[in-house]
């Protein structure tokens, strides 16, 4: 295509031809400042020229298409967004509430859609219970403030028990039926039943990591076929990856790939990804502490990390990694209806004294396995920022022994700073 025949201002055209450019194809691949230097047009004009070149090319034919080899991928980088657009987008996104108002409040309305969230915790702290609760909650009709979505559950542990889902679903349906106010909600309730909730849960049972990886290759297509899916649960990602691995490097590589796929799915299909992780005991000399499994580099994968733990007879949920929320610890309980706020009769968490009860309770079970880790994170209830610091410390350290020592030290340091923080608060 000749420059003279394209839609540019005459002054620019003449400058281009004066500099020796006669065809648009000659301009391809040049940077704007290069064009400025060679022809003397302003930067804005150079940009217009380049846009004209690209416009002509995409209208003109397939010459660019074959270059990078992959059919649709040739368009170039995905369009970038401004933070303003993203803000509007995120505000229009609803979150999945958990029925535990304290947890929702600290997460800013619930679990964000389009992000990956990891739930870690020792056995029996309620990881699966929280997952089941979310599986039901995401289906609450839109007119009740829910998402009215479907769910894909990848179960690697065999803990997905339908009796429990039915319980929780029954409780949620009952809760919604009590809230009915207008006709829209009445209509929605006619189709919102335990049976429909169950029919909207897609279940995959994976026995080993190969099946899990295979499933993840197929999930994007599945999500395209089922556009209503708003939540993907993997319970748990740790179990298949804690076995059968002779070399840790391969595991790390696979996990990194898996994390990439999850993040891509979360953003491109607009689903919330929830994964559960187990805790592992890290030994160092005589000391041992409980840390999330799968190594330190895995800690980068999830956007939000939530730690569930016991403190005596209380259950605590701690946000210890999140870009948008301060670290915080809230109490919760698991009732026959599901995941709920702790009893209101107890003191609100902000007023909770730096409890002697909690500390003495953990002190009692101060044992080889749990001690350090648990106590640290209990105390981080006081110093919210400190828990972020510890997350940073963990992030820096790698799997080597030296790294371990680092994170242990940061944990120790954290404990000190927390204690001083707690002491200050008691004084005041």
């Amino acid at each position, binding site marked *: 295509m000749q420059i003279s025949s394209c839609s540019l201002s005459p002054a620019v055209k003449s400058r281009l031809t004066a500099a020796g450019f006669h065809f648009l194809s000659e301009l391809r691949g040049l940077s704007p400042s290069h064009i400025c230097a060679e022809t003397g047009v302003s930067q804005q004009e150079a940009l217009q020229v380049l846009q004209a070149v690209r416009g002509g090319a995409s209208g003109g034919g397939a010459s660019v298409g074959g270059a990078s080899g992959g*059919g649709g*991928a040739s368009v170039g980088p995905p369009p970038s967004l401004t933070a303003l657009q993203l803000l509007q987008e995120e505000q229009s996104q609803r979150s999945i509430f958990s029925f535990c108002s304290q947890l929702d409040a600290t997460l800013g309305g619930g679990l964000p859609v389009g992000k990956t969230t990891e739930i870690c915790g020792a*056995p*029996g*702290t309620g990881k*699966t*219970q929280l997952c089941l609760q979310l599986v039901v909650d995401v289906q609450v009709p839109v007119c009740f403030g829910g998402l009215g979505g479907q769910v*894909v*559950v990848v179960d690697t*542990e*065999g*803990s997905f*028990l*339908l*009796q*429990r*889902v039915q319980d929780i679903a029954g409780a949620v349906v009952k809760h919604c039926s009590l809230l009915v106010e207008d006709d829209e909600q009445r209509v929605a309730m006619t189709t919102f039943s335990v*049976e429909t909730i*169950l*029919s*909207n849960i*897609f*279940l*995959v049972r*994976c*026995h*080993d990591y*190969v*099946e899990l*990886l*295979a*499933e993840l*290759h*197929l999930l994007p*297509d*599945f999500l395209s076929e089922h556009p209503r899916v708003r939540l993907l649960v993997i319970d748990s990602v*740790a*179990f298949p990856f*804690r*076995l*059968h691995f002779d070399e840790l490097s391969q595991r790390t590589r*696979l996990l990194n*790939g898996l994390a990439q796929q999850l993040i891509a799915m979360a953003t491109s299909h607009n689903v919330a990804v929830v994964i559960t992780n*187990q805790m*592992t*005991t890290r*030994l160092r000399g005589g000391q041992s502490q*409980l840390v999330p499994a799968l190594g330190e580099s895995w800690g980068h994968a999830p956007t939000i990390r939530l730690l569930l733990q*016991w403190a005596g*007879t209380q259950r605590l949920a701690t946000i210890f990694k999140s870009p948008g929320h301060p670290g915080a610890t809230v109490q919760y309980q698991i009732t*026959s209806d599901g995941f709920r706020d702790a009893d209101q009769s107890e003191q609100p968490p902000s007023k909770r004294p730096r409890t002697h009860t909690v500390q003495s309770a953990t*002190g*009692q*079970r*101060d*044992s*080889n*396995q*749990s*001690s350090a880790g648990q106590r640290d994170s209990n105390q981080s209830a006081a110093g919210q920022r400190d828990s972020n610091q510890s997350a940073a410390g963990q992030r820096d350290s790698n799997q080597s022994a030296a790294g371990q020592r680092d994170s242990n030290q940061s944990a120790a340091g954290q404990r000190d700073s927390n204690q001083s923080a707690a002491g200050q608060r008691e004084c005041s």
Partner: protein
Amino acid sequence: MATRMLKRTCLSNDVCEQLKRHHIESCKDLLSLTPLEVMHVACLSYQKAIELLQSVSKAVAPPVTTALELCKKQACFSTSLPTLDKLLRGGLPCGTITEVTGPSGCGKTQICLMLSVLATMPKSEGGLDSGVIYIDTESAFSAVRLVEIAQSRFPDYFNCRERILNMAGRVLLCRDLTCQDVLNRLDTLEEDIISSGAGLIILDSVASVVRKEFDTTLPGNLMHRSDLLGHKASTLKYLAHQFNLPVVLTNQITTHLGGHGSEDAGFVTAALGNTWSHSVNTRLILQYVDSHQRQILIAKSPVAPFAVLNYTIEKQGICLDGDDSQETLYEGTDPGLQSIRVQTGFTYNLTQPM
């Protein structure tokens, strides 16, 4: 499924040959690669490599079902203890692992024997009408006791010799005394399940073999031990799900030493550590109240709340005290650290009244 050969998937011969040159023969090998590596070894474009990965994934990935479909085939194995059944929503859930842990002499083996009897009974009597695979690592299995429990618990059903023999004939006992034996057994268990028509797997006890073979004070042993345990757990989970049957394990107890200057000297809790606790789906803890009275605690369960049930061991096995409606919920705590009451003293009742 993971070891499925690429040759037997829908791939063309050329691709298989090409991959074989790089020693990639099974689906596992291929799926462990990144798309970039697949492009390299298979000499394909990115788009084609993704297609290749997807078609192989299709051959490996388990099918997707909805919860509603699954609901119809969900089954439970009744323990014949009404209160426990009620709490566990019908009994031990099929397809999952249930662990029974407790101090010695508290009735772990009794529960296993009782469940064995139950599993062989016909469906009309609340059983599974199937065989039992009983892996005994402690040589604690007693056929005499099995028959005794059967006769005293269900006198109406086991009223003739034939039925008792039939029952005993359906309990397949495997005496595996070393860790490696148990692992080998588990690897070939699939055949036994099919040939004996088993509906229940019992492993009594998982702790004794690993605990006597691994000295945890030596470096590296602990890692090796948890590897073996993890392997066991995943095999059992696979079998449980594949054949939709309940798996019952017994575990021992260990003393946790209290450190860090706490006044508490230590407490007794379930053995084998935290990683293992993740692997079991349901954990029942047995503990002593006094020399006669014992308790079952539901310490971890996806369906049941924390609960305490009192029981005694009688001639007919485990007997729950109190009426059906009575159940005590307790404030739960970490099931990995739940302390267990053990027998503290021995009392002798020499003058036993009639």
